[in-house]
């Protein structure tokens, strides 16, 4: 029960929830959509990876790729079904939220009908080896999870900074009206955004399945945590989402080792409420200029 153990757990949890929180955050700030469909994306990606591992190969890389791809496809489906028909109608924020939530519930039921209620296990990707670093034991799966999540996050951040599509997405995050004036198509950019954020949620699902199982409703808790972390970090801010993920990851790790796993949600939401009392717009909500209207 020492502090390094708690810290290590915190980093692992933070990297998984951070992926979802950043995905939620990017979707909100560029499309104005609070996507509650990530619960479904999450389970869908888990099943995608499971199908790959059962029917094709158990090699880690293809299974992970299958999870990311399934997540991206699922994100595009949500975009086509909810975002494109609704985005220029009145009350889009509320309608979009209801629509994505409906997809999440429907989709998870469909998975339940298709695959049954029994949870599936994914193969271990990172082996069972461990490294001893000055008294701290780092197991391979923890290192693997943190490395994969960090690589994905860095990829997304650099892609947003460096590529032309990233420029379009950032322009849309800052001023959607001006974006259409310079010829950026909202619907086309929406598909890119949903594909890349879906891929992020897919990777999070695959990584989390190293500890938990893949089940039809396994996406619900990560979704709630991801959305509340994104809210806590200040919706629309990538840095804020990462900071909040670290704080809440630490809370979760500390609570589960000091008090016990059943108190995790309680302390986590207490921390979120405290943060939002003192910073109603989230941790970096005031620092960030995105969507400040």
């Amino acid at each position, binding site marked *: 029960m020492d502090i390094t153990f708690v810290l290590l757990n915190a980093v692992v949890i933070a990297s998984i929830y951070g992926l979802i929180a950043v995905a939620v955050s990017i979707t909100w700030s560029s499309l104005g959509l609070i996507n509650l469909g990530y619960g479904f994306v999450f389970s869908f990606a888990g099943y995608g990876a499971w199908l790959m591992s059962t029917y094709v190969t158990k090699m880690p890389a293809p299974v992970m790729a299958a999870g990311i791809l399934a997540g991206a496809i699922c994100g595009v489906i949500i975009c086509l079904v909810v975002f494109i028909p609704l985005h220029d109608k009145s009350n889009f924020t509320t309608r979009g939220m209801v629509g994505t939530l409906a997809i999440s519930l429907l989709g998870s039921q469909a998975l339940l009908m298709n695959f049954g209620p029994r949870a599936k296990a994914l193969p271990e990707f990172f082996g069972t080896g461990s490294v001893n670093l000055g008294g701290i034991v780092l197991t391979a799966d923890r290192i693997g999870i943190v490395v994969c999540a960090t690589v994905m996050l860095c990829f997304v951040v650099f892609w947003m900074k460096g590529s032309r599509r990233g*420029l379009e997405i950032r322009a849309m995050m800052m001023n959607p009206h001006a974006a259409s*004036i*310079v010829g950026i198509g909202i619907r086309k950019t929406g598909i890119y955004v949903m594909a890349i954020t879906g891929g992020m949620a897919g990777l999070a699902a695959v990584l989390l399945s190293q500890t938990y199982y893949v089940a039809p409703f396994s996406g619900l808790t990560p979704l709630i945590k991801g959305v509340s972390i994104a809210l806590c970090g200040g919706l629309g801010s990538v840095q804020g989402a990462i900071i909040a993920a670290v704080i809440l990851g630490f809370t979760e790790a500390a609570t589960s080792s000091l008090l016990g796993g059943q108190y995790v949600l309680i302390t986590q939401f207490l921390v979120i409420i405290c943060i939002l009392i003192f910073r109603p717009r989230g941790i970096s909500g005031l620092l960030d200029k995105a969507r400040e209207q």
Partner: protein
Amino acid sequence: MTDVLVIDGLSAGYGPLRVIHDLDLKIKSGERVGIVGLNGHGKTTLLYAIAGLTGWQRGSIQLNGVEIGRTRSQGPGRYTHQIVRQGLAIMPQGDEIFNGLTVEEHLDSGAFTRDAWRNRKFRKQRVLDLFPPLGKLMGTPVGRLSGGERRMVSIGRGLMTDAKLYLVDEPSLGLAPKISQSVMEALFSLDLKDSAMFIAEQNVALLEGRVDRVINMHAGKLKGEASSSLSLSKTHG
């Protein structure tokens, strides 16, 4: 001289409000056309209607022979990016800019056609030749610039692509006289070739003698055309 823009029977507005009333207009290639009128008489709405940004609209708008106007009852901005890709450059009123992007990224975002994106370096240089003060500011976020510099960025962004029609909305709005003079100077010095420029402006003195014709707009209708500053005073009188 081909017609770059042909508007026929255009009506547009927002919700129950009708701002533009059955308006007809033709702009030929190589022309600089000014449109003057008081606040709230529909200059900006006319430019927005061309770009498909009004709440609703009906009537025909042809840009370079392609129909871009359509009858819409909702969805402002839904087709704007397609219209822009047909060859429309909009330099909007006020600061429709992306606060967090740098000046350079801003100019890049204006180069949306494949051709423009490929030789964007050359095009950026062309904008810098027109607005030398921007050269030192390429890496600065636009949110930190002064009003005049922002206007230069927003106009420069519109110049990054080969547009057939440049829509310029109130280029002098909110700027010090000296700066607005230099911004206008840049607009007038641009070689239009086969494209056209349509400038909405309240300050008639800035347009006087520098544009091919000036149209007066009143209560959502066009009132008289003038080919020079001399007849301009006639339409006012």
